[in-house]
């Protein structure tokens, strides 16, 4: 079993912040911390399969949620993951009032600016725990 920190975004398909969460998580695991972090498909976690439960059980996880429903955090906890940090996209977005970030299909430059800010926060947290 991998002991990498698991970074799990909600990837919410209906709103731009779901895509921001997804891109920020992928930026972290692919570019910023590939040796310390990995992602796990949230849809796979939702299935509740024994394989994924085994993978998640007791693992340090950072969840990235695009809306207050906190689906990533709730599902990771239900699967047995230990949520050490709940990253909320809205916490970063509120520092950029009045800006548009693109759509749930495609981010614009401001969208990627927020992605980079969130990814940097996740990277910092990963370096604290791994």
């Amino acid at each position, binding site marked *: 079993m991998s002991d990498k920190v698991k970074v*799990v*975004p*909600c*990837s*919410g*398909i*209906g709103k731009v912040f*779901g*895509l921001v969460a*997804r*891109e920020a*998580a*992928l*930026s972290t695991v*692919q570019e910023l911390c590939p040796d310390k972090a990995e*992602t*796990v*498909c*949230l*849809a*796979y976690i*939702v*299935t*509740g399969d024994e394989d994924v439960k085994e993978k998640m059980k007791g693992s340090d996880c950072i969840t990235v949620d695009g809306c207050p*429903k*906190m*689906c*990533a955090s*709730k*599902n990771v906890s*239900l699967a047995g993951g230990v949520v050490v940090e709940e990253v909320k996209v809205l916490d970063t977005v509120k520092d950029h009032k009045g800006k548009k970030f693109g759509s*749930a*299909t*495609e*981010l614009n430059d401001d969208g*990627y600016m927020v992605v980079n800010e969130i990814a940097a926060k996740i990277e910092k947290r990963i370096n604290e725990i791994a």
Partner: protein
Amino acid sequence: MAVLKVGILSCSGEECLGGTISRLATRKVLEEMTMVDTVTLCLPLYNAGGTEERNFASVFPTISVDGCDKLCAKRSTEKYSGRINGSIDVSKIIGNENALNTRIVRNRDLKEEHFQMVEEVAGEIVKSISNLSPDAYSGKSFRGCNCGSE
């Protein structure tokens, strides 16, 4: 006149390209299809207590779009809403090697060939919507009533 409404549930898997293609193809159908009212449902909300999501899929026809043969969206929808009207396995359309590509997953890394895959999968989703039985719209095959109760 009854509104023709169809739910599309994408896995949006974060581990491989198939999930990205499933997400983008679903978004494309959602944004461009005008014949029927397509609605996308957040899969993670199923488990996180999204009763609206669960009720929608038990009342309206729903199609799952999965990036790989684990078929997480299909299985979760069946688990929480009972049945599904159509299922698309992206790996069968773009090939397993492409679907399980773990290097190119982010939107910003996609190239022309990947957008071609999105087009192809979106076409299959539209085909699946076209193949829905008229009963799926008329209410004859509904498990529950329109109030959303089971």
